[in-house]
């Protein structure tokens, strides 16, 4: 990570990565100003900034972001929570595994976006439809990774715990659960990616609020500045989700050799 001891070099390491994105922005702006790019094709960065300011001031942007965020979190809580619980269940119980796992493994192969028509039939275009889709999308990565994490724990550690007099619950809490955590968190990362993707699709197809709706609505009026703004907001939300999981990983997996170095320098 470090290029040298000189403060100048460290500062350079902070600044240099921004050069290319900035250059792109400048060239993009110039192209728009000089008329190489039509406004109805792609709005200039300055126009996007203005649109951002306007919709932020009117409160519309904030409302839409909050609604999208709520849908995402609710869907994740339901789908991810259920996936985690079932993963733990099939992970610790052979009977639950026999009963549930092969069925779930089959369902997993259905692309969850393929069921959108059915979901619209069932729930219409109200909130439930979007939350349901997000829940289905986030369920599988978390289920699969929790189950896998529980099943691949070193048998030797469980035996060691038994020999040292730990009961079933203590073994679950102190051996199985923490042992499955790295895998569960990988599942969470996948789930977060799927969560935003699902929400974008669901909101652009059928919604009357949210970021996806905002961009679709803007498209009808050829407001490319709002469309670009919507895309940027999605990117920011995705980035924030990623940063959150990284933070969780650093806290929960502090024991993991992969996190030692960063833990000691932070």
């Amino acid at each position: 990570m470090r290029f040298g001891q000189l403060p100048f070099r460290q500062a350079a390491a902070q600044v240099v990565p921004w050069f290319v994105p900035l250059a792109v922005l400048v060239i993009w702006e110039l192209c728009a100003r000089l008329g190489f790019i039509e406004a109805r094709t792609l709005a200039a960065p300055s126009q996007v900034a203005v649109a951002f300011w306007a919709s932020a001031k009117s409160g519309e942007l904030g409302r839409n972001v909050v609604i999208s965020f709520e849908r995402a979190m609710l869907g994740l809580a339901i789908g991810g929570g259920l996936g985690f619980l079932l993963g733990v269940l099939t992970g610790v119980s052979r009977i639950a595994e026999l009963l549930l796992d092969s069925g779930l493994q089959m369902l997993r192969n259905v692309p969850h976006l393929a069921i959108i028509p059915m979901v619209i039939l069932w729930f219409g275009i109200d909130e439930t439809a979007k939350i349901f889709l997000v829940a289905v999308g986030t369920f599988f990565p978390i289920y699969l990774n929790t189950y896998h994490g529980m099943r691949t724990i070193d048998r030797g550690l469980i035996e060691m715990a038994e020999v040292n007099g730990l009961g079933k619950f203590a073994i679950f809490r102190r051996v199985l659960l923490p042992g499955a955590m790295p895998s569960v968190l990988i599942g969470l990362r996948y789930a977060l990616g799927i969560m935003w993707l699902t929400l974008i699709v669901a909101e652009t197809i059928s919604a009357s609020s949210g970021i996806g709706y905002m961009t679709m609505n803007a498209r009808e009026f050829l407001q490319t500045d709002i469309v670009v703004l919507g895309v940027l907001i999605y990117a920011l939300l995705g980035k924030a989700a990623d940063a959150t999981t990284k933070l969780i990983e650093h806290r929960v997996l502090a024991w993991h050799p992969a996190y030692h170095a960063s833990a000691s320098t932070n």
Partner: protein
Amino acid sequence: MLQRVQSVHGAFVSQPVDRLEAGSTRSHLDERRRKGERLVLEDLHLSFGTRQVLRGLNLEVPAGQFLAIVGRSGVGKSTLMRLIVGLDRPTKGRVSIGGAAVEGVQRTVKLLFQDARLLPWQTVLSNVGIARTPGWRDKALEALRDVGLADRSNDWPAVLSGGQRQRVALARVLVGEPGVLLLDEPFGALDALTRSEMHGLLEKLWFRDGFTTVLITHDVAEAVALADRVVVMNEGRVTFDVDITVERPRRRSDVQLSALQDRILQGV
């Protein structure tokens, strides 16, 4: 912790400090042995499918004895340990400890595995106090002090060396105050110097606490240097049984020990 004396032949001989101060008479030794439990194995049979691993194994280990078991790879030594500790059940026969038959995992029997088996997500201290019995922190710290790792109590196991991990595992076993301590080649993967250090440590702790000890090893020299008695396992039974009466502290190069070693090797 321990003094080490290098003999003429270059072998390291451990000399537990306690031991030297306490003198080395048998009677004194017996008096200090409080925790040891008698271990009796009667007509043990165990098969995996059609493969018979144990075929009528009989063995009686008096309380506080240090027994070493040697035998070829695959002869069933680890299997026997698992039976004694209660992880597996014999197909036939019985194991009893302190007069009571073994049913399920035993509280008074502790097993030190070949690998340290530390929980990577718990600190060294929490690993040692894994059983979380009342007052575990103090006990765990004391046990870590016994194995010379008190200063590492807040580290993650991943940063320890192989030998240090085995010492932590030994400390974990000590916290359980075992009546019978089983050691399944716990030092096999360590280098010769570290191994000899671990032997010295084990001997010291055994002498101090007096648990009945069963050490499995491939190394016959190690067996005769440490144990009161060595048995050889062959085809699922005990086929050779010899008391090692050589005074402690022992020197690896002792002629009596070499003679015994030869006899045992012929027995294997």
